[in-house]
């Protein structure tokens, strides 16, 4: 970064710098220039090393104080003259001279030129009105020439002193503003957690503080060696991209006003941390900058330094997170793999064994009952394999971010579909249902059928009949509960049952079913709980939002339903009768929400 300062110092000659400072200290000049909207700033004024200097703006035009300053200066002198003429009969010439000195001092506060104008006017007025011979410009006493010189000198000294004071004051204000800007930037950038955040904060602050357009580019993760814009709306031309590239690769400023690619319209500052470039800021002056002095560049550099550090910090944090995640995923995958491979191998062993027995030399001599037994073992274990694979697939799908495609569905229909699919597994075991017919949920039908199947299957495997399946509306949620009458959940296991590969009993299973239940419930914005019911048996509950705010169609209303016309109704049209809560006479008395 110090290179950049050297750059500035080397190309802006000291005289010019001071000249520029002078301009900046003159509020009149600043105001005038701001009003004129003259596009002058350090980035654009800075001549290039190649020597193609821009024509410096007319000095007079930039330094001339407002006409008002002169009017005021002359007005002060005029007023002093009038007052002097009034009181002259009662005073001496020395007193009048003092009055003029005060007037010159007042006018000198407006700058050097008004001071000189005031001094000139004062000399003329004093000469004409007061110094004998009066009302001529002749001077009888050479002493008065000294008086005139003193008046000019006073004007010069006072205006110079005021100017210096003003400049110091202004620089203090600028310093303070810079410190505040840098502090605000540092504070905001500390909260950034991604390279995009860092870049966005940087661009926002730069564009707040400087009258520039800024873009931050960082290395493209997808394409090694390429830079990608992380924030900022400024479109970059190919030449400007080249400037950014150069600055990034050489870790040195490039572009407008530097030794490198000086013809560019932009200035590129590299973001450096630990001697490595982590990004690059590209800036372009947008309008008349408020920073005519060299103060702009050090501040820009300070921003770049902070942004570089923040970018590096964010990157290290992301790398650490990714490494932790990788380790975790790896661990999970290996334990999942070992558990699942065991669970896949067991049914495979049964299938292979049973099938080879049947196929073997003695297969024909087996009693029919044994043959049937072996065959049904093959079927059972093949189904088991299918279940494990299905759960594994579903789990992977949901955990890798599958978005449920929600529809409004009667819960009764979901339950019915699940029970139909489990018909064989349930057999003649008793299932008690309490599902209000009017209960409607916004869920993914396929995923939620899986939730119900896994819960019922779990109860069938680990619990004891009768099974109880309830659904009800509870506040802002729809609750679904499957309860069995088995041994219940062992003390201290509870929610851990929903973790992968956790099994509470010795019954076969890979410990995936409940993990799938939880993953799907979470994907629906819901939650799962498990406990032992009072009176014995395990109780698993899934709760999902009844009126999800997010995707999917709005809940259909009855009015909306009534609007849909029926196609060529085969009978005289009848009011569309069915509703969400149909004929109570035929409804099986359900629903006591608990």
């Amino acid at each position: 970064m110090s290179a950049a300062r050297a750059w500035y110092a080397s190309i802006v000659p000291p005289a010019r710098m001071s000249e520029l400072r002078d301009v900046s200290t003159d509020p009149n000049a600043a105001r005038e220039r701001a009003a004129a909207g003259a596009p002058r700033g350090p980035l654009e004024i800075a001549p290039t090393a190649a020597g193609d200097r821009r024509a410096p703006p007319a000095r007079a035009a930039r330094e001339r104080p407002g006409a008002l300053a002169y009017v005021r200066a002359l007005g002060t002198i005029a007023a002093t003259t009038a007052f002097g003429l009034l009181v002259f009969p009662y005073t001496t010439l020395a007193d009048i001279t003092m009055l003029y000195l005060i007037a010159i001092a007042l006018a000198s506060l407006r700058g050097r030129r008004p001071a000189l104008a005031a001094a000139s006017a004062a000399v003329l007025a004093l000469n004409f009105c007061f110094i004998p011979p009066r009302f001529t410009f002749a001077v009888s006493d050479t002493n008065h020439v000294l008086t005139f010189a003193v008046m000019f000198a006073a004007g010069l000294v006072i205006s110079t002193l005021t100017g210096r004071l003003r400049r110091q004051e202004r620089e203090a204000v600028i310093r303070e503003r810079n410190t505040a800007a840098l502090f605000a930037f540092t504070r905001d950038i500390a909260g950034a957690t991604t390279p995009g955040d860092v870049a966005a904060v940087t661009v926002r602050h730069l564009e707040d503080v400087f009258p520039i357009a800024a873009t931050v580019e960082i290395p493209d993760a997808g394409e090694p060696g390429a830079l990608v814009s992380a924030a900022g709306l400024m479109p970059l031309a190919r030449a400007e991209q080249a400037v950014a590239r150069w600055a990034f690769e050489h870790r040195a400023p490039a572009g407008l006003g530097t030794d490198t690619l000086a013809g560019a319209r932009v200035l590129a500052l590299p973001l450096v941390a630990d001697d490595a470039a982590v990004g690059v800021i590209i800036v372009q002056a947008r309008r008349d900058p408020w920073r005519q002095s060299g103060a702009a560049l050090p501040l820009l550099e300070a921003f770049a330094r902070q942004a570089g550090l923040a970018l590096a910090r964010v990157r290290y944090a992301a790398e650490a997170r990714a490494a932790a995640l990788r380790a975790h995923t790896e661990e999970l995958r290996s334990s999942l793999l070992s558990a699942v491979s065991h669970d896949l191998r067991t049914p495979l062993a049964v299938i292979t064994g049973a099938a080879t027995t049947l196929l073997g030399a003695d297969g024909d001599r087996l009693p029919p009952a044994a043959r049937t037994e072996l065959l049904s073992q093959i079927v059972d274990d093949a189904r088991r394999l299918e279940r494990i694979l299905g759960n594994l697939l579903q789990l992977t799908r949901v955990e890798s971010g599958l978005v449920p495609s929600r529809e409004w569905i009667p819960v009764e229909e979901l339950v019915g579909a699940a029970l139909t699919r489990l018909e064989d597994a349930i057999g003649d075991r008793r299932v008690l249902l309490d599902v209000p017919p009017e209960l409607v949920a916004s869920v993914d039908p396929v995923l939620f059928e899986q939730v119900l199947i896994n819960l019922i299957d779990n109860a069938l495997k680990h619990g004891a009949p009768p099974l109880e399946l309830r659904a009800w509306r509870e506040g802002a949620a729809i609750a679904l509960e499957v309860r069995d009458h088995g041994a219940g959940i062992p003390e201290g296991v509870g929610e851990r049952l929903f973790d992968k590969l956790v099994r509470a009993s010795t019954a076969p299973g890979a410990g995936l079913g409940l993990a799938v239940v939880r993953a799907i419930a979470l994907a629906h914005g819901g939650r799962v709980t498990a406990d032992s019911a009072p009176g014995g048996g395990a109780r698993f509950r899934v709760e999902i939002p009844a009126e999800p705010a997010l995707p999917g169609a709005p809940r259909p209303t009855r009015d909306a339903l009534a609007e849909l016309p029926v196609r060529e109704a085969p009978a005289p049209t009848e009011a569309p009768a069915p509703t969400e809560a149909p004929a109570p006479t035929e409804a099986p008395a359900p629903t006591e929400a608990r």
Partner: protein
Amino acid sequence: MTAGSTVLVVDDDVQVRRFLRTTLAGHGHATVEAGTIAEAIDAIRRFQPAVVLLDLGLPDGDGLAVLRALPAEQRPPVIVLSARGQEGDKVVALDAGAEDYLTKPFGASELLARIRVVLRRGGGTAATPAILQVGPIRIDQPRHTVTIDGREIHLTPIEFRLLLELARCPGRVLTHRQLLSEVWGPSAVEHTHYLRVHMAALRRKLEADPARPQWLLTEAGVGYRLREPAA
């Protein structure tokens, strides 16, 4: 009654073909096999099978290409074979003209039942008889009445239309889109919720326990099916 029909098996997996060939032969069906889309189209033209069992993932593309390559009138009924979790693909296939689907892995009884349903339908052009009987459900079209085990139940016109569509071919799945289009017209095909509400009402009137339906079965993510009564 369905024995002796030729079945075209389109699947690139030799083991699946072997299983299907053996099972179908055991039940009196002749089989023709194809492993690619091109072979399948060729086989349909040459052998004019009564049914096609079509796997959707073929080496030379999506099995749906077979459906699309032939005009509907030249196309034998197609039963799609697919895996669970591909409900979207099933719906696309059914809406594209497939008769039904089977989720792999499937049992022989399921396979034979689907083939039987499709063959009974005879290509789908047979006129519906005036009186339909599915298990205990009896639909009298001219009189516009429905009875279950002789007991008359009152259906709204919409419910009657829905039941009729499903009963025209018991055992065959109808997608949401197909039912909506048949009953409400093609502009209504997105109103799935509408259909669900009416199906719930219909179930309430037809089923002893609507939460454990015996006849009006839900195929999650696909559509509805009226159970084929056991022979």
